């Protein structure tokens, strides 16, 4: 589960990481009040969306399509104001909040559709002498947590890895004793932070983000940039935190912060039935049991020249209700021109799947061709139920047969 910047900063603050003071606002009036409460004469208003590239993003309502296309293509300089605005007066704050709230922000990561901004973070500015990058994440190669930092703050780490891999410094935490204070100090010195204040501040920040990672069951804590001021103050200027979905059962407060408006409505609906669903761009809807087979079904559709409309794993123990819900979610998508059901029954019995399919079709009707491939446990019984149902279902015997039939059905053959 991804968090908004203001939520991430709240968690970091609780674990001793210095972050600039700020407040989240959902209306223009709240944004102005937040700026007044913060005081001073300089503020930053930041759109709260999960997608990256906010600063270089542009708002759909006030930008022409050429600009939006340039943003999506990742252009460095596009005219206009983006999702992060520097404000030197209350009028600026008001204008920035007005431009963002309820509007659609298009960034390199959102695609041309963009995302609606429902909340902004109003924060104070920071004095920046140096920008760095730092993150804690799981290193899958050795199953240990990794503290990774670079002097190239403000740049995406993937880019640094490509152009200047030597700039990336890494230390690994011991899985029993944790990240040592000495490791945090060592990292600060390796990054060239030699003044006493800056090296201490950085080491404290490193320890703090590691502790945030552990305490919140994160899968990533990324500070980009972490800034050092002229007098050596260290603060986390931006923050990205993602939480392990498998640990939400014990992270109840964080789980309650879930913002379903950030996710595709079909994905939210699917999650309610414990279905794993991801919307894609094609027109062949898929319903499959098992994540690996579901990905493979997408792959084979493409292999035969078609385009999958979604990834959908109904899981290992799905019953009739889930199968029905899955089919309903797929058929609700107007771009779907054919549906491919691919089930290899293990624990899941093919006859149960067949009953679910029949019930869903009977209740919701079906206006696109449906290809069904059943294999494994009770496959014959399932096929028989489908054949006797009188529904116009295209049966398939193998994975290749199913993919070919689905692709032909879309082509109208």
């Amino acid at each position, binding site marked *: 589960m991804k968090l908004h910047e203001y939520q991430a900063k709240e968690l970091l603050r609780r674990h001793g990481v210095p972050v600039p003071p700020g407040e989240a606002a959902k209306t223009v009036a709240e944004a102005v009040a937040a700026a007044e409460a913060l005081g001073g004469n300089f503020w930053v208003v930041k759109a709260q969306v999960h997608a990256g590239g906010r600063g270089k993003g542009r708002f759909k309502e006030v930008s022409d399509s050429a600009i939006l296309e340039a943003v999506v293509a990742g252009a460095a300089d596009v005219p206009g104001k983006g999702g992060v605005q520097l404000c030197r007066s209350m009028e600026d704050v008001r204008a920035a909040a007005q431009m963002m709230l309820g509007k659609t922000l298009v960034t390199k990561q959102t695609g041309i559709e963009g995302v609606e901004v429902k909340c902004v973070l109003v924060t104070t500015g920071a004095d920046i002498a140096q920008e760095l990058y730092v993150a804690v994440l*799981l290193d899958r190669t050795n*199953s240990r947590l990794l503290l990774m930092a670079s002097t190239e703050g403000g740049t995406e780490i*993937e880019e640094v890895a490509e152009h200047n891999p030597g700039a990336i410094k890494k230390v690994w935490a011991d899985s029993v004793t944790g990240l040592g204070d000495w490791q945090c100090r060592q990292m600060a010195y390796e990054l060239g932070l030699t003044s006493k204040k800056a090296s201490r501040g950085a080491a404290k920040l490193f320890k703090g983000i590691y502790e945030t990672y552990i305490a919140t069951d994160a899968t990533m804590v990324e500070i980009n940039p972490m800034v050092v001021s002229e007098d050596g103050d260290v603060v986390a200027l931006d923050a990205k935190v993602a939480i392990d979905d*498998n640990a939400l059962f014990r992270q109840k407060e964080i789980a309650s912060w879930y913002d379903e408006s950030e996710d595709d409505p079909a994905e939210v609906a699917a999650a309610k039935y414990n279905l794993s669903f991801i919307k894609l761009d094609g027109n062949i809807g898929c319903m*499959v049991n098992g994540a*690996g087979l579901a*990905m493979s079904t*997408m792959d084979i559709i493409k292999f035969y020249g078609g385009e999958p409309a979604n990834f959908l794993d109904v899981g*290992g123990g799905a019953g009739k209700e889930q199968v029905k819900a899955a089919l309903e979610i797929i058929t609700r998508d107007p771009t779907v021109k054919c549906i491919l059901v691919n089930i290899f029954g293990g624990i899941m019995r093919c006859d149960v799947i067949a009953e679910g399919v029949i019930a869903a079709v009977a209740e919701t009707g079906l206006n696109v061709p449906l290809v069904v491939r059943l294999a494994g446990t009770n496959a014959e019984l399932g096929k028989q139920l489908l054949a006797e149902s009188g529904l116009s279902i295209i049966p398939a015997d193998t994975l*290749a047969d199913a993919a070919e039939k689905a692709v032909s059905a879309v082509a109208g053959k």
Partner: protein
Amino acid sequence: MAVLVDKNSRILTQGITGSAGAFHTRMCMEYGTNFVAGVTPGKGGQWFDGKVPIFNTVAEAVKITAANVSMIFVPPPFAADAIMEAADAGVALIVCITEGIPANDMVKAWAYIQGKGVRLIGPNCPGVITPGAAKIGIMPGHIHTPGRVGVVSRSGTLTYEAVGQLTAVGLGQSTCIGIGGDPVIGTRHIDALQLFNDDPDTDAVIMIGEIGGSAEEDACAWAKDNMTKPIVGFIAGATAPPGRRMGHAGAIISGGQGGAEDKYAAMLAAGVHVVRSPADMGKRMREVMEAEGLI
């Protein structure tokens, strides 16, 4: 004897009285697998289906029954602890089926079992089967045939698909290992390839990877110089969008890494017989084995 498990394996189930643990223990026993004990804290002294004694702790179960394999069906919040309990009790092979264990818990459990002489399969996996001898996990036993092809995969049903295809082209399996779809797992592709390479009863291997991480690349780097048996390889998720978790906790392309094309390239560099269509795994294995004079 194939690898990991055979008729002589002495198996216990942790979480034997839970609904999934009970159901699958029964299915495995029907397959002819040798279950000697079950563990559920608080139910020690009872019997499972009147056939298998239940103990309060793994240590007690091992002491009395000499169990050497544990199949874990403990719910996610307690599963990492169950893995450590089994390791501490001296069980040689731990097969953890549980899906949904927090990654932080697995980081600790993974560290804990190092150096203890324990092998972990999973978690979030279908288990291990040596057809005709022992089934430890949730895979449908009836689709398997005893034979000489090893199968290793991160997925469940995709493994069944591969097995179904092998059986359909007349090729049996030595052992099928589902290593699991999580980011932190015990046995990886490289370990499975090593086991199959050393196994006199395995002639060839189907290796099924998926997007996320670099375990397939690591395995291929090893196979390039060390594997003496042919491998047929497939990677699931060539069409998956970056940054999205495709069902499995570990199946995500992040930071430009973990994509299918890099994995395919590593396979080709290691001389793996790559199939781009998941429907061709069995057929291709038959062709490769015929060409190598293995059948």
